[in-house]
């Protein structure tokens, strides 16, 4: 995707030992998705397809509104519909969540990626995949706490929402936000979005949603896509949005201690071998050994 050449600074690069400067709070952007305002029209999905030139093949209708059934290499954002029987208040709620990359401040995909520069994080917080460097190993899928990246069978590259980094670099908001007819999706600086969310949460609380709140999970140091939820105490109601997302400890172990201890063990084994050779010298067969063998063969006593 060489046409994406954002006027943005990189702060992190996968599989690289470059220093990682902290994101400057002033530069950070965020998309706020207010689930209480969403009407499930899928204009955001269409706008995403349009802007990014993605055309998913039509699938079988399985009797639910989710279309397609899941995120895929050509569907970077997806409305997920959940029918929630709220027994406490005796009503049926239709929860509609726009799923897609959350643009974590601490991105698990980037941490897991073995290909230098295939995943980058810009100084504004956007996490982007660079297809030219991607090798299609699927490690990002294992690193992601939100189950977002998908590997294309066509070109073996990983795909996900770019937060329209190309548009953002030119001072525009993401396509989905632009298309949303109810302003359920808004885009701006992270600080502004947090303020806006606070207003929305207050409003929702006044209207009877006592547990309304902002979803900006601290387990991944916050995200650059945030939700306003009516049931912020139970994010998993919304089609399995993780309650406490964090990079899996297994991934942290793999990419942390295992990586360093592994190299150390291999290096140490080689060094011990070399050291032993110099200390003990080669283990050589002597003429005496050959004599003894010959006598053995000839059946003489040795």
């Amino acid at each position: 995707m060489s046409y994406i050449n954002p006027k943005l600074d990189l702060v992190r690069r996968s599989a690289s030992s470059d220093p990682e400067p902290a994101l400057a709070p002033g530069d950070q952007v965020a998309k706020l998705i207010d689930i209480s305002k969403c009407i499930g029209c899928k204009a955001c999905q269409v706008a995403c397809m349009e802007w990014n030139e993605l055309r998913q093949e039509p699938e079988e209708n399985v009797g639910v509104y989710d279309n397609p059934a899941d995120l895929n290499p050509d569907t970077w954002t997806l409305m997920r519909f959940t029918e929630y029987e709220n027994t406490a208040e005796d009503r049926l709620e239709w929860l509609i969540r726009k799923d897609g990359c959350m643009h974590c401040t601490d991105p698990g995909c980037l941490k897991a990626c073995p290909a230098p520069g295939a995943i980058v994080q810009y100084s504004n917080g956007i996490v982007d995949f660079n297809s030219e460097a991607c090798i299609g190993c699927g490690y990002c899928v294992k690193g992601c706490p939100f189950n977002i990246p998908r590997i294309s069978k066509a070109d073996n590259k990983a795909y996900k929402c770019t937060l329209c980094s190309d548009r953002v670099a030119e001072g525009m908001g993401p396509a989905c936000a632009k298309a949303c007819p109810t302003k359920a999706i808004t885009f701006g600086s992270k600080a502004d979005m947090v303020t806006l969310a606070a207003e929305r949460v207050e409003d929702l609380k006044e209207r009877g949603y006592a547990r309304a709140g902002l979803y900006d999970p601290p387990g991944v140091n916050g995200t650059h896509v945030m939700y306003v939820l009516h049931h912020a105490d139970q994010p998993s109601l919304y089609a399995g949005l993780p309650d406490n997302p964090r990079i899996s400890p297994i991934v942290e172990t793999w990419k942390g201690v295992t990586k360093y201890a592994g190299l150390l063990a291999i290096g140490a084994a080689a060094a011990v071998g070399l050291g032993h050779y110099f200390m003990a010298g080669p283990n050589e067969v002597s003429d005496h050994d050959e004599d003894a063998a010959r006598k053995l063969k000839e059946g003489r006593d040795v």
Partner: protein
Amino acid sequence: MSDKTYVKRYSALARANHWVTAISLVLLAISGMALFHPSLYFLSGLFGGGANAREFHPWIGLVLAISFLGLFFRFWRLNLWERTDNVWLSRLRSVLAGREEDLPEIGKYNAGQKMVFWFMSILIVVLFLSGVVLWDDSHEWLAANLGLSFTIEQSRIAVLVHAIAAVIAIVVWIVHVYAAIWVKGTLSAMIRGKVTGGWGWRHHRRWLREEFGKGAKGTPPAE
């Protein structure tokens, strides 16, 4: 200078089997390490880039698994643990110093070789099984033919297990290769299939007695 006697140690088929395994193991280690640590990513250049290394690695793994199975069935019986192996291990200091006169007479394999054999056998099973979980391209086939599918959480465990098992396998491989270099005259067993009688006398005396004993009776030497 005395005339050397020679003893056959490996058939041509056994050697071919070994070298297919050896070459695939080295290729697997190189392509695997390229994806293991960013500082080794350049190794993927040997395969024509990271995408190729990723693509080839599991296929080479399949070759290794099948090839090693051949070695396993060829040699497992000779690698069964014996009482003398405990003695050998308890005198590791003499082993490392090359004082083999302190050690009991050894059959075809000593305890160190047997440990390499069994370690590799277990590690290759672990690497193969965890590798299948990571081999995305195989999943469609596995789902259609074996009804197997894997969750992301399972793949996280698999990737960690695969990395740890690979590191141990590489360390075992270093021990194996080092021993072959340190103990002079060993490489010819895997290259030409035979060793000198003196080598057998020094390192595997019980095996040598059996081989020479067999030769006297006119029976062909076994593996």
